[in-house]
């Protein structure tokens, strides 16, 4: 499959159909291929594709979109949802991308003891179809182990408020504010994040309390609500192994319950449930009082 990808990429690059290729490049270790742009045919000999190619490349299309000509981008099924979402938000233009959808057999990572394991997102994967592509290479292998991706969220919901606060305090107080989660997030595509702006005293470079990080994470979760595709990148990259997906999935679960099932990135047109609010039929903000 990797070979087919290389051949096809070389064809498209040499024919001038695309100006560059966005893929994964061989790393020093089997487990650390890096996202990379390729602009010459011989460079494509280093293109790799295996289960360690976890990085979702759609976010890089925001930059590629500013360059001349088309960019060939390889997207796994779940990555195509992010791409759609970025098109919907006018951050990338569909016609500047040549999308080759690549089959996925689940992504792996190595832990601190150098053991290989399947990513959390792949254990609950629901996105087995490419939602946008020009051509497809390779087959998908289903890696889902759990039917319900909201199981953990429900467990947290069942906690008492104190327990729940303790749970999140334990999780979020580990945060070192390295910004990996935000910067990797395809939905976090603001040109200047409010947390980086010195203008309004919102810039957060230090914590006032040890639990200050909740602000950053809760605001981030709210800001990507209805736009988060549950791509799982934030949890994948967090050096402190914080279960960030629980925050986003809670939002998704609530949106599904209050506004009807919605999957961000399913297509590039349907307005998100929160941007398409209908005062007559949609849940009133006061539902929080009933729901607790």
């Amino acid at each position, binding site marked *: 499959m990797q070979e087919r990808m290389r051949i096809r990429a070389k064809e498209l690059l040499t024919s001038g159909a695309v100006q560059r290729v966005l893929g994964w490049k061989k790393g020093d270790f089997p487990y650390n291929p890096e996202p*990379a742009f390729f602009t010459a045919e011989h460079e494509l000999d280093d293109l790799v594709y295996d289960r360690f190619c976890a990085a979702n490349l759609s976010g890089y299309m925001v930059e590629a979109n500013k360059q001349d000509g088309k960019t060939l981008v390889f997207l796994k099924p779940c990555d195509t949802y992010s791409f759609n979402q970025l098109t919907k938000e006018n951050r990338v233009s569909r016609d500047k991308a040549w999308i080759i959808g690549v089959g996925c057999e689940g992504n792996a990572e190595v832990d601190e003891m150098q053991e290989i394991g399947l990513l959390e997102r792949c254990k609950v994967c629901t996105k087995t179809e490419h939602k946008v592509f020009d051509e497809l290479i390779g087959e998908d292998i289903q890696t889902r182990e759990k039917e319900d991706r909201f199981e953990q969220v429900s467990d947290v919901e069942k906690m008492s408020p104190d327990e729940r606060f303790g749970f999140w305090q334990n999780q979020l107080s580990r945060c070192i504010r390295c910004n990996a989660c935000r910067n990797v997030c395809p939905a976090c595509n603001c040109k200047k994040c409010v947390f980086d702006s010195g203008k309004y005293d919102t810039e957060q470079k230090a914590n006032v309390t040890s639990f200050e990080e909740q602000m950053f994470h809760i605001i981030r979760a709210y800001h990507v609500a209805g736009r988060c595709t549950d791509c799982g990148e934030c949890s994948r*990259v967090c050096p402190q192994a914080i279960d960030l997906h629980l925050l986003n999935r809670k939002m998704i679960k609530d949106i599904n319950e209050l506004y009807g099932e919605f999957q961000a990135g399913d297509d590039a047109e349907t307005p998100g449930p929160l941007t398409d609010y209908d005062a007559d039929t949609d849940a009133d903000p006061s539902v929080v009082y009933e729901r607790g």
Partner: protein
Amino acid sequence: MLKIAKNNLPALFAVIAKSADLYLPIRKGTVNYAPWSEDADVDLDTLKTVKSPKDFFLPQSETLYTAALAGKKIQLEAEPFADTPFVVFGVKGCDVKGIEILDKVYLSDPVDKFYEARRKHGTIVSMACAEPQATCFCKPFSIDAANPAGDVVAWMADGNLYWEAKTEKGKKLTEIVSSMLESAADDIVTAQQKDIRQKIDALPYNSGLPLDRFKAERLIELFDAPQWDSLYQTCLACGTCTFICPTCQCYDIKDFDAGECVKRYRCWDSCMYSDFTLMAHGNPRKTQKERFRQRFMHKLVYYPDKNDGEYSCVGCGRCVNKCPASLNIVKVIKSLGVNADV
């Protein structure tokens, strides 16, 4: 050489904690240095803590002084310097060297008083790396993971912790715990050291890194190297590499409006950020390429130029493990070292 049985360590920690604040690697989701307590999940087996122990000397953020209005005057109150003794236990060779690298910045003229006070009150118990990992490359930086620097050096072998004081501070700490330690022969430690050095020699990054290419004489050539154009491209500018790095040393100074008063604090900054060194006229490093280049030029060229050729990377491999885009200093060294014509 002294020793203590591994299962007596909790008792040892309790004694140390009576005389000083004790910090050691503790598992809480991930493993990081944290204050010891009886029920803490101490983890001396995990090789790399996520964050380095630099926090104890250069905290991620600290208040420098407080300014408050007193009538029509502004009253300034300086934050007191650290004055409680503390012990950081289980620091690996690379991280000890990381602190020595910070020393050269913070203890040279003008001395940073906050840093100096912490350094004075801190005792480092280092630990040899029984199981180094593939991402370690301390050897090219002349660090001996089998015999690290530190006030006390410890080796975990054979169900015991072996203990050797190396400095005056280390001897003081040894006196405090002396009743718990018994004397031991050197042979077990010597054997472990040999084993560690063999393992280190066999690691992929420990040989052949073209580091000798990074010299001040080549500054301009390296600065202008075409490789930067592609190296930086997928960097997310997140700053993870700088925050987990034991030698990254840059900070920002800002004011915090605490309502009644203003607190002037300093906090870690990252050259990867767009507002790093932002001045009234704008930012001297306008693109991510320039910011990315700064991180590596600083570690491999600028710092050595000012410090007798010593690099400010210790090969801990944290950036190799944690960069979300799998970029790291090794890739940079290898890439810029290709057309070496040394």
